[in-house]
C-alpha cells in the first residue's frame, strides 16, 4: 500500500522533472516542512444552526418595550430570562451558555448580518457559507481557507464535516475534505466478522496499489485517495476507541458529532491534525408553535456544547479550541398569528473559547428603526469570519473573504 510519504515522494519526482508545478503539488511538497513547524495547532469548530434561529428569543432584549410590543405572546417573560447585562438575557433553556459566560468562556456578537438580506433558506445559507452576499462564489469560505493551507492535500483530516454531505462552506477548489456521517459509514464496509473480511480488504487495497499505468492521469490520485481514506478512518476509529470522555455527552446527533471532533482533537502524539470541524443542528425554522420547539433546540445546543467544552478542558485542549455558531438568518421582529415567527434578517453569533473577551460584542440592533419589519445588521458577519481567520486560524482573511472586513474585537490581547 502506498503511504502518504510515497505519494509526496512521487509528487516530488514530478517536481524534479522541472515542469511548471501547479499549486497543489507545490503545497504537497511543502507539507513536511509545515508539519514540523506547525506547533500547537488550533482548531475551529463551526456549528451551523439551520433553519434560522429566532435571535430575539435566544438573546432576549427583555428590557425593551418594543420587544414586548412585537412579541405579545412569544416574548420571554422578564422573570424567566437569564440576565447577562445591558438589558439582555439568555433564553431560559440556555442555562449552559449562561454558565459558560459566567466562567469567562463565552462571547456573543450581536446583530450579525449583511446588506440586502435574502430570506430564502438556501440562498441565505449560500451567502453565509460562501461569505459572498451576491452568492456567486463557487467555493465556501472554509474551503478557500483549506485551499490556502500549505498542507491542503497533505492531511485528509485537516477538515472534518459531520454529516452526510459536505457543507457549502467546505467546498474548495483544490482541497478535498470529507463529510463523515458516522464512523460506520466512514470506513470500508464488508462481510463483518467473516474470515473473508481481511483477505477482501487486502485484495482491494492491492488492486489500487498495483494499478500504475503510465499515461492515465488518475491512477495515483485514486490510490492516494483510498489510502488517505483508509488511514483517516483508522485514525478516527483508533481515536474513538482510545478516548475516554470526561463527561457524559447528551444523546443527540449534535453531541455525537461534537464528541467525534473532541476525539480527533485529542488524538495522536502531537498536535491534532484537525483545523476546522463542522457540525449542524437543524430545525430552527419556527413558523408555528415556536416556544416548545425553540426551547428544545436551545437546550440541546447548550447541553451539547457545554459537554463538549468541559470535555475539551478536561483533556487539556482549552487553549486550542474555538467554537463559533451561525444561522442563515434571524426571525422577523413581530411574531406571526401561529405562535411562530417568519424569516428575518440578523441574529447573534455565539463563540466559545479561552481566548475570548467574554460577554456581548457589537451594537445591539434597533428594535424600532426597522427595515420592512426586520432588524438592520450592526456587524457584517464577515467581520466575525475575519476575526476568526486572522485571530484564531492565523490565515489571511482579506484573501479568503475577497475584501477587507475589520475583525470584530473578540479576542483577548
Amino acid at each position, binding site marked *: 500500500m502506498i503511504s502518504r510519504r510515497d505519494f509526496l515522494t512521487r509528487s516530488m519526482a*514530478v517536481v524534479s522533472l522541472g*515542469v511548471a508545478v*501547479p499549486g*497543489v*503539488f507545490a*503545497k504537497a511538497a511543502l507539507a513536511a*516542512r*509545515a508539519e514540523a*513547524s*506547525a506547533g500547537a495547532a488550533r482548531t475551529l469548530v463551526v456549528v451551523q444552526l*439551520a433553519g434560522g434561529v429566532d435571535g430575539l428569543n435566544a438573546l432576549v432584549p427583555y428590557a425593551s418595550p418594543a420587544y414586548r410590543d412585537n412579541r405579545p405572546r412569544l416574548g420571554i417573560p422578564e422573570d424567566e430570562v437569564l440576565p447577562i447585562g445591558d438589558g439582555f438575557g439568555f433564553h431560559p433553556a440556555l442555562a449552559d451558555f449562561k454558565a459558560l459566560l459566567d466562567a469567562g468562556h463565552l462571547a456573543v456578537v450581536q446583530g450579525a448580518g449583511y446588506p440586502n438580506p435574502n430570506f430564502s433558506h438556501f440562498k441565505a445559507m*449560500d451567502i453565509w457559507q460562501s461569505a459572498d452576499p451576491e452568492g456567486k*462564489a*463557487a*467555493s465556501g469560505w472554509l474551503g*478557500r481557507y483549506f*485551499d*490556502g493551507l*500549505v498542507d491542503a492535500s497533505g492531511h485528509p483530516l485537516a477538515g472534518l464535516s459531520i454529516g*452526510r*454531505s459536505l457543507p457549502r462552506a467546505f*467546498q474548495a477548489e483544490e482541497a*478535498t475534505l470529507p463529510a*463523515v*456521517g458516522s464512523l460506520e*459509514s*466512514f470506513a*470500508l*464496509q464488508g*462481510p463483518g466478522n467473516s474470515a*473473508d473480511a481481511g*483477505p*477482501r480488504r487486502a*485484495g*482491494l487495497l*492491492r*488492486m*489500487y496499489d*498495483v*494499478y500504475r*499505468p*503510465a*499515461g*492515465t*492521469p*488518475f*491512477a495515483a*490520485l*485514486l490510490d492516494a485517495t*483510498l489510502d*488517505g*481514506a483508509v488511514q483517516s*478512518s483508522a485514525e478516527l476509529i483508533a481515536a474513538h476507541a482510545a478516548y475516554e470522555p470526561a463527561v457524559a455527552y447528551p444523546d443527540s*446527533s449534535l453531541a455525537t458529532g461534537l464528541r467525534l471532533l473532541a476525539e480527533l482533537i485529542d488524538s495522536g502524539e502531537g498536535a491534532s491534525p484537525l483545523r476546522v470541524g463542522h457540525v*449542524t*443542528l437543524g*430545525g430552527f425554522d419556527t413558523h408555528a408553535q415556536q416556544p416548545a420547539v425553540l426551547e428544545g433546540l436551545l437546550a440541546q445546543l447548550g447541553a451539547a456544547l457545554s459537554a463538549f467544552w468541559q470535555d475539551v478542558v478536561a483533556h487539556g485542549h482549552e487553549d486550542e479550541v474555538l467554537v463559533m455558531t451561525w444561522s442563515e438568518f434571524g426571525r422577523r421582529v413581530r411574531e406571526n398569528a401561529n405562535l411562530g415567527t417568519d424569516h428575518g434578517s440578523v441574529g447573534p453569533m455565539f463563540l466559545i473559547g479561552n481566548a475570548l473577551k467574554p460577554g456581548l460584542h457589537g451594537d445591539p440592533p434597533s428594535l424600532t428603526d426597522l427595515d420592512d419589519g426586520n432588524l438592520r445588521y450592526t456587524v457584517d458577519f464577515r467581520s466575525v469570519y475575519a476575526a476568526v481567520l486572522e485571530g484564531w486560524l*492565523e*490565515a*489571511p482573511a482579506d484573501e479568503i473573504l475577497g475584501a477587507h472586513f475589520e475583525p470584530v474585537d473578540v479576542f483577548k490581547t
Partner: protein
Amino acid sequence: MTEGQPGAETPLLYRRSTRRAVLAGAGAAASLAALYAAFGDRVLGGADAPAAADEARALEREEVRISHLLRRAGFGISQPELTRYVNMGLDATLDELLRFETIDDSETERLADALPIDNRGAPVARWVVRMANTKRPLQEKMTLFWHGLLTSQLSVVRDGNAMHAQNEFFRANAFGSFPDILKGISRDAAMMVYLDIDGSQRGAPNENYARELMELFALGVGNYTEQDVREAARAFTGWRVPRQRRDFGPALGEPVFVPRLHDDGTKTFLGRTGELGPDDIVDTITQQPASARYIVRRLFSYFVYPDPSDEELEPFTEVYLAGGRRIGPVVEALLRSDVFYSPRAYRALIKSPLEYAIGALKALGLESEAPALLTAPGGPEGGRGGAGGRLAEMGQVPMEPPNVAGWRGGPAWLNSATMFARLNFIDAASRGLLSPRGLRRAQPELPFRTAAEALALYLPLLLDDNVPDEQRQTLIEYAGGLDAVLSPEKKQGLVYLLLGSPQFHLA
C-alpha cells in the same frame, strides 16, 4: 517569491496566493488543468506518447471502443447490451445511439411514469430510473449534460413538477439548437424562479439570470462587461411565475409576461443596439465566436477529455457553426472522431457518482433496482435535499447540484468520504443490500462458479479485459486459484474487487 512559499507576514501554515481573486467564480478548469499539467501530457506524454499508449492499446479492439463509447455516451453497459452492440459493430452502435428518436423507449417511460412526482425526491427517482433503463442512453446523457450546464436546484425551486418539466424540456431538446435551448430555458418556470427572472421588473431589473447566462451558461467570463449584464437584465424583465401554496413548496404555474413590467426601452448589448428582448439577447450571445468555443469546449470536456486546446476544438466548432448551432452534429462529430478513440481519451475522465453507480447496477443486472438508490431520506441534520441516499453520500444528487455552477466533476468527485461511499455502494450491491438499512434486498445473479469463469465474464464487461497482470494475480489469489469452486461469499467478494477496482472509477 515562488508560489507556495509562505511570506514573512503570514504564518508558515499559510501561503499567499498569486491566483486570481478568490471570488472570481467557477474554478473547476483551473484545478483540472493543474492535474493534467502534473500527471497528464506535459509530464507523461500526450496523445501520441508511447508511454500513454500502453494501456490505451486496448482501443485497437472494437469491443473496447464500444465499451468506451457507452461509458461516455451512456451510463455503462450490461452484459446483454455488450453482446448486442458487439454483434452490431461500432458503426451501427453509433448510428443507434445518435438516432435515438427512432428507438422505442416506451418501456422505460412506463417505469418512470409509475413513480409519482412530489416536491422532494420523486422526480429525481424518475430520472434515475430512466438513466439506468433507457434504450436511448445518449439522450439521457445529454439531458444530464444540460442539467449540469443550465442548472436549477430542486431545494430552491421547491416544485417537483416544475423540475420535472424542465427535465423533460432538456430531454426533448437534447440535440436541439443551442440558441433554441437557451431561449426555452429562459422561459422555464423552474429556471425563472431559480435565477430570479421571476419578479424582475422595469426600473429594478434582477441581474442574476443575465449574469449566469453569460458567465456560466453560454459565453464564459472575460467576454462581456458589467454594462452588458445590466443591459441584458433589462431585457429579461416583465415575467411572473404564478404560484399556489402546497404541502412542501409552491406549485408553479405557467410563466406570464406582463408587458407593463417589461423594460422595452433601447438597450446596447455586446455592441448591438435596439429594443432588445430575451431572444435578441440569446441570439447576440450565441453569435459571439467565444460562445461557440464555450459550448463546444463544454461538450468536448464532457465526452472526450478535459481541457482541450483551442486547436483541438476548432474542427468541432466548425461543425457547430456549419450545422446551424445545433448540438447533435457536434456530438456526432465528437463520438465519431479519432480523438475520441485516441490514447489520451482512454480512462481519462473520472466517473460521476451517477455513472459509477448506474454502471455497477447495469453490470450486475440490477438496473431496474436503481430507485432503491434513493430510498434513504436525507441526513438527520435536515440539510438540503430530502432525497439522495447513497448518491448524496457519493456527492451527486440529480436536480440538486451544489450551486449554479453545477458539479465541478473530475478530481473533485473524489475525497475520502466519497471514496468510502462508492466502495460501500459496490459492497452493498454485490451482496444484494440495496437500501442503506438493508431493508430492500435484490440479489444479483452471479453466473459463475470459479475465478476463471468470473474473470472471463467480468473483465471484458467491466474493465475492457485490460488490467495489469498484478491485478489479475490479486484476483486469482483472493479466489484461491483459478479453478477452485467459490463459496457464495467468495463470489460476492470477487465481484466486489472487480467492480471496486480503480479502473472502474474511470470512464
